[in-house]
């Protein structure tokens, strides 16, 4: 089996954000992360493209993505003081959407930094 190679991939596990990692993968899992440290290697090798979790859970039951998005929007819209929190393990593009979400809800916006 031949593996595909990606050069200069970026590791986001710690604040070093090393952007010189060479990844060897077969589209399902990453088999090798060259130049990554122990933490980075564990991060790359632990994630796969398999479907291990349900698309969504609503009140503990499996649900479709569309149902979950509607439920989330309804709960947030009904709240008087919703909180948008986290944003550590996500991209800047998603973080920008989170700022827009808190803005249109009139809610709170906060990250891990405040701990």
């Amino acid at each position, binding site marked *: 089996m031949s593996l595909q190679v990606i050069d200069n991939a970026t590791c986001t596990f710690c604040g070093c954000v090393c952007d010189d990692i060479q990844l060897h993968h077969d589209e399902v899992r990453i088999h090798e992360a060259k130049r990554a440290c122990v933490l980075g290697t564990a991060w790359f090798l632990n994630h796969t493209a398999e479907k291990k979790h349900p698309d969504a859970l609503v009140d503990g039951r499996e649900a479709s993505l569309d149902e979950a998005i509607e439920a989330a929007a309804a709960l947030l819209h009904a709240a008087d003081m919703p909180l948008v929190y986290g944003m550590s393990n996500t991209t800047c593009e998603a973080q920008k959407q989170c700022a827009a979400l808190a803005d249109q809800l009139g809610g709170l916006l906060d*990250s891990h930094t405040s701990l």
Partner: protein
Amino acid sequence: MGGKVTCTLGEVKQRADFIVYWGGNPAECHPRHFTKYTIMQKSKFLPRGRKDRTMVLVDIRETKSAKAADIFLQVKPGKDFELITILRAMIKDQHVTDEQIAVTGLSREVLDDLVGRMKGAKFGCMFFGMGLSMTRGKHMNSAALLTLAAEMNAFTKFVAMPMRGHGNVTGADVIMRWQTGFPFGITFNRGYPRYNPGEFSTVDVLVRGDCDAAFIIGADPGATMPQPAIEHLKRIPTIVLDPHVTHTSRLSRVHITTAPQGIAAPGTAYRMDEIPLPLKPPLKSPYPTDEQVVRRINEAIAAKPFWMPEGSQPQMLTAQV
């Protein structure tokens, strides 16, 4: 950069001949920091690499990073602010008593030596970690260290930089600053952003029980926050976006599985020195990205009536004339 006296890691790699790690353990938490950015690198200005650089570690206990250090200063727990203040006085040749120095657990000889080395450096850089910013004094400690770095510039080039932790926390700061003007602890409840850590920061909000819904993304407060905060998350409707079913997912009303950033989700992440880097995800996830899901939630909410009554929304100055 919020008024910090700082620089990029590229400058540290090329020029810094004096490096301090304060309250951090890079050997275990940022394993490639030494080799990729700081002490181990050879450069045009420091051709002998490690031999041309001095590394000081300040911490309350001897961690694995101490092995890499030339000088290890064991400060008494909770006395970082005192030590920084004493250093600020000593670099300016102000009088410091022996009793004041004794409080920090260090001796005058050691501090005299440190001050001499700091002033003798061509380019000094102080990295500070959670051991400084999350212990007694908190952000006052960080502010004191940044002031020390600023004041050292009367003698030589000196900068300071926080050692940011996991994931893209730096990106969150930058994006919030860009979008709202504030880095964290923000509310929009008057229709425009206001900032007040302690009042609008998450732990305080949750412990007081202020919020009546929570949207959690790329974090697992159910595993890390104090128990009263978790109890409140259980009481209110909580929505979680995460690549895994987490502790927080288990106490939430809605969990949506998303693609992990940098592995199956493309985008941008910020390095600790606030340099944005593109992600190169190798895998194709069966799940949508965080960005796609939040965008769709935004659209679904936009289709509902706006929460502020018509005419009561804050207006741009141009709209008021």
